[in-house]
């Protein structure tokens, strides 16, 4: 009796145990709809010989192998400073990975990673920061969680400075704990 019920239910209609069923079964019919809408990430590269002076902003992931002076803004995207990249700029991105050299403040809403051989001279503001063995860093790290009102953190950032570059007035809120 039980076996027959179970065999019938999945094919005809969802079981009353909604949370479990929704995790497993509906995914199969929905999947074909999602697949065509899958976001394809274009990888944009700024080559070794390219020198940019000014403001660089965009809405896709970017890898820089050349030189940039000024400001880089990729608010919701990944910025990778390649091993040959030389940046003299304020950097704003979702995630920043540094393998080259950055001279300036780095602000990321998600994560900043300085990999082996990478160098940052400036202040970092990010909820997560990873500094690898062999990386160079001079400045301050502000890991205050959650970007909230701009006033609270701006005062903290401006009161303490170590890097030669001007401090960033970046929104951040004191940690909950």
């Amino acid at each position: 009796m039980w076996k027959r019920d179970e065999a019938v239910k999945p094919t005809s209609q969802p079981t009353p145990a909604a949370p479990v069923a929704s995790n497993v079964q509906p995914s199969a019919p929905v999947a074909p709809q999602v697949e065509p809408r899958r976001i394809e990430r274009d990888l944009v590269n700024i080559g070794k010989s390219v020198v940019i002076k000014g403001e660089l902003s965009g809405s896709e992931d970017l890898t820089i192998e050349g030189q940039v002076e000024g400001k880089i803004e990729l608010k919701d995207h990944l910025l990778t400073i390649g091993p040959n990249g030389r940046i003299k700029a304020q950097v704003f991105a979702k995630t920043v990975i540094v393998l080259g050299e950055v001279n300036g403040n780095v602000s990321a809403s998600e994560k900043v990673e300085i990999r082996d051989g990478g160098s940052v001279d400036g202040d970092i503001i990010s909820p997560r920061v990873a500094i690898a063995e062999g990386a160079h860093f001079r400045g301050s790290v502000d890991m205050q969680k959650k970007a909230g009102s701009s006033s609270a953190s701006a005062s903290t950032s401006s009161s303490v400075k170590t890097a030669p570059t001007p401090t960033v007035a970046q929104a951040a809120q004191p940690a909950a704990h």
Partner: protein
Amino acid sequence: MAFSDLFSRRRKDEPDHDTGAAKAPVHSTKVLAKFIASLNGRTSPVLLDLGSVHGANVTFFGERLGCKIIVEDLSKDIDRAVKDKTITELPAHFKKRFAQEDGSVDGVLCWDMFDYLDKHAAAALASQIVRLLKPEGVVLAFFNTAEPKEPVPAVYTKHIVVDQAHLQYRPYPAARGKQKPFQNRDIQRMFEPLRITEQFLLKSQQREVLFRKAGGGAADASV
């Protein structure tokens, strides 16, 4: 015989267990937990780290305290002074080394940086730390108590936080070795008007000290 062999081998192995997976030895620390506890209740504290930067430490303090960490690696200053033969100018260098405002820092991690300084340079650095510290701010410092053995190894120690009771000591090359240890009273004088609130003498001949700057008014009496 066989059993005793087994036990003796095991005893021999015990120190290696301390070494841990990353090869560098792990030592216990008593003062770090007190340092963290002192900063725990503060909203967005500012921490000044005078040792070499390490990702694990940044993550540990950042996540634990939600703080801003300023890294001012003094080992590089010492190395430069030794190479340029300007070691006698270190006291003057320290006086203008820190751009931070007076009373802007909640906690200072000195680690064992004072062991590499002579008396004048150490006093100059200590006075800067006192200047930077907020009322009720705390300073963690380690001092060697034993005279360094003659071929003094020219190594710094990277203190990597494993947890609040353990530090991994990772040596790395230095331009000079540890200097003559300071007497306890010299340490106290150097850091005046800070008070020593915690002090531990470890088996490793290292003195772990927690200093605290007196707060204004009634808060002072509570410590």
